[in-house]
């Protein structure tokens, strides 16, 4: 049995995203996929899925959705105000959505990218190994009002609603990076000043990259003229010709000519993608061995994320002190998640 998700209305940046196309750089295609892949893993944990599946990614603003068969959904990533009909529902949780009910997701209350994951999976036809829209590559398109997406059947619609406490990543903060092939093109003074500078996430931001604003002078490389184009990666800290920094994200190019100060480590990249307009960001360089250790720890943690999901015993909207409760345990869990 199959089902469908009907999009009654969609915000301006709503698209299907999975873990993307990680091995297509040789044909010039960047990974793409979810701007915050951790949100897909959290959704899989909430829904009891073995691996992350395709989700509806919502940049800044959600939409209204219906299903034509009972379907659990998970809501992860940037917290957004959500209701099923008139009932407020919890973010970072799974819920059962029944035919005839309407799921309404509003504006992000923190962070940038929210995710709606149906338990049955989105059954659109994969292209080059993924269902993700990759707009800069011309693959797929933004979702619009009236779209109808095929879904697989929910394997366990009767499973209890679950909740989890997410890793804190929606307010900017300190971002760790490693050296890259072009770090040596910047003077030690410029590198030191880069680490000392507090940046603000600019309004110029999309799935390709985020511009960083500062009052500080530009961070120009010592050699820029005639520099050959070379491989670039998501996470790269790129300085345009005028020395203004960008952090490249999932839909970046694969080769570029602007110099890069380094590469943000994978575990911290979602924090850049999710930083809302005006959030403060600082950058701290770490050694490559340390980055490798952090990446291994992060990969291991993703495999055990399922244990972080706990049943929601009562309708959270009816428990007035739940918010305070989760915030307190969130502090503890957040630290556990860091290391």
């Amino acid at each position, binding site marked *: 049995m199959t089902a469908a998700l009907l999009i009654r209305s969609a915000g301006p940046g709503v698209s299907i995203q999975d873990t993307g196309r990680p*091995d*297509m*750089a*040789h*044909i*010039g*295609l960047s990974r793409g996929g979810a701007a915050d892949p951790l949100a897909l893993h959290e959704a899989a944990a909430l829904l009891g899925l073995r691996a992350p599946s395709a989700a509806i990614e919502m940049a800044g603003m959600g939409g209204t959705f219906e299903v034509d068969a009972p379907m659990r959904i998970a809501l992860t990533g940037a917290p957004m105000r959500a209701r099923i009909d008139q009932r407020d529902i919890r973010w970072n949780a799974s819920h059962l959505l029944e035919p005839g009910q309407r799921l309404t997701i509003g504006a992000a209350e923190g962070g940038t990218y929210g995710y709606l994951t149906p338990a049955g999976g989105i059954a659109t036809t994969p*292209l*080059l190994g993924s269902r993700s829209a990759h707009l*800069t*590559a*011309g*693959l797929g398109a933004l979702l619009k009002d009236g779209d109808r997406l095929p879904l697989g059947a929910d394997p366990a619609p009767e499973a209890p609603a679950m909740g989890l406490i997410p890793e804190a990543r929606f307010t900017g903060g300190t971002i760790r990076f*490693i*050296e*890259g*092939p072009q770090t040596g*093109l910047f003077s030690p003074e410029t590198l030191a000043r880069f680490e000392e500078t507090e940046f603000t996430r600019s309004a110029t931001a999309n799935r390709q990259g985020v511009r960083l604003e500062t009052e500080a002078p530009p961070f120009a490389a010592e*050699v820029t*003229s*005639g*520099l*050959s*184009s*070379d*491989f670039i*990666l998501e*996470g790269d800290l790129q300085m*345009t*010709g*005028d020395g203004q920094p960008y952090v490249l994200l999932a839909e970046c*190019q*694969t*080769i*570029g*000519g*602007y110099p890069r100060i380094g*590469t943000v*480590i*994978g575990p911290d990249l979602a924090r850049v993608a999710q930083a809302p307009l005006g959030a403060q960001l600082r950058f701290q360089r770490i050694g*490559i*061995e340390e*980055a*490798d250790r952090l*990446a*291994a720890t992060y*990969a291991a943690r993703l495999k055990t994320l399922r244990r972080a999901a706990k049943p929601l015993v009562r309708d959270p909207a009816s428990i007035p002190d739940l918010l305070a409760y989760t915030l307190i345990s969130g502090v503890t869990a957040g630290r556990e998640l860091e290391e």
Partner: protein
Amino acid sequence: MFDDANAPTRPPAEILPLGRDGWLVRFALTAAPWATAAAQVLNDRAQADPPEGVLRVMPSLTSVLFRYDPEATDRIALRARIARLLEGHDWREARPEPAARVWHIPVAFGGAHGPDLAEVSQLSGLTAETVIRTIAETPLRVLAIGFAPGQPYLGLLPQALDLPRMSAINPQVPRGAIALAVRQLALFPNPSPTGWRQVGRCAFRAFRPEAETPVPLRAGDELRLVPVSGAQMDSLLAANDPEGGARCEIRS
């Protein structure tokens, strides 16, 4: 310790970390002819016999990227295997093999199809006609595929066309745009922002996501850009054929 690890490799190649799962062998920072030749030769050799643990080898203009599975392969040990690949060759004298495939691709230069040709002419001190003839007469090689899917970097053009990128980004060139910077041309498979100057346009589609071969060009292919009039290009674009009048000649 990465500085120490550089010791086994004598210049001119540097072995540099790129992200979580890559080693980049870089011959030069600028697109010097010997360095692009060295990158082509190293890519051919590494493709034929990749070091243990390497999942992908891909060339850029002056570098070759080796990607590996970081959960299965030790970063430092792989670096040593890549260093061994570089030993015993005079990379400054590397000569790529002749191309096995030669593409002939119609291109309209100047006018609406190449709005920046006049600026290229002005900056290079060559007449527009000379710029077009120089491009058409150069046997271009696909040095790399990247930036956007299917997009070839073509080179090298003669020294006279060694122009820097623009300092401001052009927000959008159309699909098929041919743009020039630093002795190279790029062919844009999709509308794109760029810091390069658009001198022409073709109707050849370098990225066909639904096709059996989504990217028809391969690193190492030779390209000949064949000048056609703006009106001819309008007809080729209107025909909406992904080949865009291009012809692929197989040499054996």
